[in-house]
C-alpha cells in the first residue's frame, strides 16, 4: 500500500470524525432537551390534578423544539447510514419518546402510537434511512412510561387522587398484554420487560389498598 492509499484512508477517517463531531453536538442538544422534559415531568408526582395542564404547557415547548434536533440530525446523516450512527443518540431518543408518551397519557389517558410520537418529535417518514424511530426504541420509551406510572399510582394517592391508580392499572395491564405478545430475545428490552411485572404488582397493591378502604368510586373495574 503506497502513501496515496494511506492518505485516502486518512481522508475517510477525517471525514467520519468531522461528521461525528457534528452529530455529537446535536445529540448533546437532544439529550439536554430530554433531560429538561424528564425533570419537568418528575414534578407530576407532586402536582395536583388541576395543575397538571399548566405543567404540561411547560413541557410542550421543549417537546416541540425536538423537531429542530430531528431535522438537524436528518440533514447530517448521509443516505443509508442511519444504523451506522444511531448508537450515538439511542438513549436520548428513548428518553424523548418517554416524555412524549407521558404527555400523551396525562392529556388523554391513552397510549401515543409510534406514528404519533414520530409526529410529535418531528421525525419525517421520508428520512427513514437517515433518521427514524425504530420500534425497539419506541418500546423502550413505553417501558419507561410504565415505570413512571407505577410511581405516579402511589403518589397520586398521597395527593388524594384515588381514581388515578385505577386508571393507571387498566392502562398498564393493556400494555403488558401487548408486550407479552412479543418474542423477545435476551437483550435489554427483554430485561426491562421482565421488570414490568414489579411495576404491575406495585400498582395492584395501591389499587387494593384504595378499594379495600372504599376510597375510590365503587364503579371502578374489577381487578
Amino acid at each position, binding site marked *: *500500500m*503506497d502513501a496515496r*492509499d*494511506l492518505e*485516502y*484512508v*486518512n481522508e*475517510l*477517517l477525517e471525514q*467520519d*470524525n468531522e461528521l461525528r463531531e457534528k452529530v455529537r453536538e446535536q445529540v448533546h442538544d437532544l439529550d439536554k432537551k430530554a433531560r429538561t422534559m424528564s425533570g419537568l415531568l418528575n414534578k407530576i408526582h407532586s402536582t395536583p390534578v388541576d395543575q397538571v395542564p399548566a405543567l404540561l404547557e411547560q413541557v410542550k415547548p421543549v417537546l416541540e423544539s425536538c423537531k429542530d434536533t430531528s431535522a438537524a440530525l436528518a440533514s447530517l446523516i448521509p443516505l*443509508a*447510514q*442511519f*444504523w*451506522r450512527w444511531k448508537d450515538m443518540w439511542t438513549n436520548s431518543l428513548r428518553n424523548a419518546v418517554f416524555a412524549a408518551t407521558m404527555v400523551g397519557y396525562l392529556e388523554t*389517558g*391513552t*397510549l*401515543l*402510537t*409510534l406514528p404519533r410520537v414520530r409526529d410529535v418529535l418531528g421525525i419525517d417518514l421520508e428520512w427513514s*434511512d437517515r433518521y427514524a424511530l425504530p*420500534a*425497539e426504541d419506541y*418500546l423502550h420509551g413505553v417501558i419507561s412510561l410504565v415505570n413512571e406510572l407505577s410511581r405516579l399510582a402511589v403518589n397520586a394517592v398521597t395527593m388524594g387522587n384515588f381514581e388515578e391508580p385505577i386508571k393507571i392499572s387498566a392502562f398498564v395491564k*393493556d*400494555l403488558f*398484554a*401487548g*408486550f407479552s*405478545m*412479543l*418474542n*423477545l*430475545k435476551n437483550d435489554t428490552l427483554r430485561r426491562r420487560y421482565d421488570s414490568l411485572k414489579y411495576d404491575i404488582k406495585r400498582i395492584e397493591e395501591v389499587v387494593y389498598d384504595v378499594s379495600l378502604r372504599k376510597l375510590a368510586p365503587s364503579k371502578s373495574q374489577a381487578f
Partner: protein
Amino acid sequence: MGSREAILSVFECFRDELDDHNDRRERLIKHGRDVTNLSKKVIFLLHRIMVDDAPDDPAGGGEGTGDRARALKAASRGRDKLREVRAMFANVRHELVGDRFWRYQRQISPGLQEYIEALSFAHYLETGKLISYKEVQISLSDDKGIPYFPLPLEDYLLGLSDLTGELMRYAISAISRRGGRTKAQDVCIFVRNCRAGRYFEGWTPYFKDLRKKQNVTSQSLEKIEDAAYAIVVRSSEYDLSPDMLDDIVARAISFHGVSGNGRGRGRDYDEDGPDD
C-alpha cells in the same frame, strides 16, 4: 389509542417487525461463521503451500525463483478459494440492502475481518505489499463494480492488524529454510512499517479494538526480531556453513516458543495463534 384491542393490534405489528429483525440477525451470524471458517482455511492453505517441502516447480530455476513461484502458486490457489468466500458475501447481499448493512454490521464484521486477513495475506505473498482499502472494496463488488456493501474502515484496519500475526508465523516457519533468513528480514521490515508511522499508530484512538491488535502486532514483531537477532549474533561469531546455521536458528526459535506448536515445519495449523 385506548382499548386493549387497539393496543394488541399495534403490538402484533411490533412482533412481526422484531421477529423479522431477529431472524435476519440469526441468519447473518450463521453466515458470518461460515465466512470465518472458510477464510481461516484459506490462511492455513497459504501457510501450507509456503512450507511445503515438495520439490519446486521445474520452471523455477534457482532458489529465489523457486520461492517466488511457490508464493505465486499459493496466492493463486488462495485466490481461488477466496472467490468462494466472495460468493458467500454476494449471497447475503439482499439481506443488507440500504442501511441494513449498518444495522447488522456487528454480526458481519468478524467474518469480514477474517476474509480481509486472508485476502491481504495472499496479496502480500503475490506482491509483497499491503492491500489497499480500495482493492478490498473492489474485491467485494459485483461484475459491474457495484459494492455488495460499504466496507467499514474499522474492519479493513482490524483485518490488516491480524495479517501481521500471520506474517510472523510465516517468517518464523520460513527462517529455518533455505533463503528464509532474507525472507524473515523482509517480513520484519514490512511488519515494522505496518505498526509504526503516523498511520496505524495515529489511527488507534479512533477504533477501540485497534489498540489491542497493535499490541499483538508488537509482540509478533518482537518474536521475529528476536529470531533475526539470534541469526546475526551467531553467524558473526562463527564461520558456519548454512546447514549448521539452520540448526542453530531452529534451536533459537524453539527457545522463543514459537515453533513449539509444530509450526516450524509441521503442517498442523489447527489452532489460531495470537489473534483472538
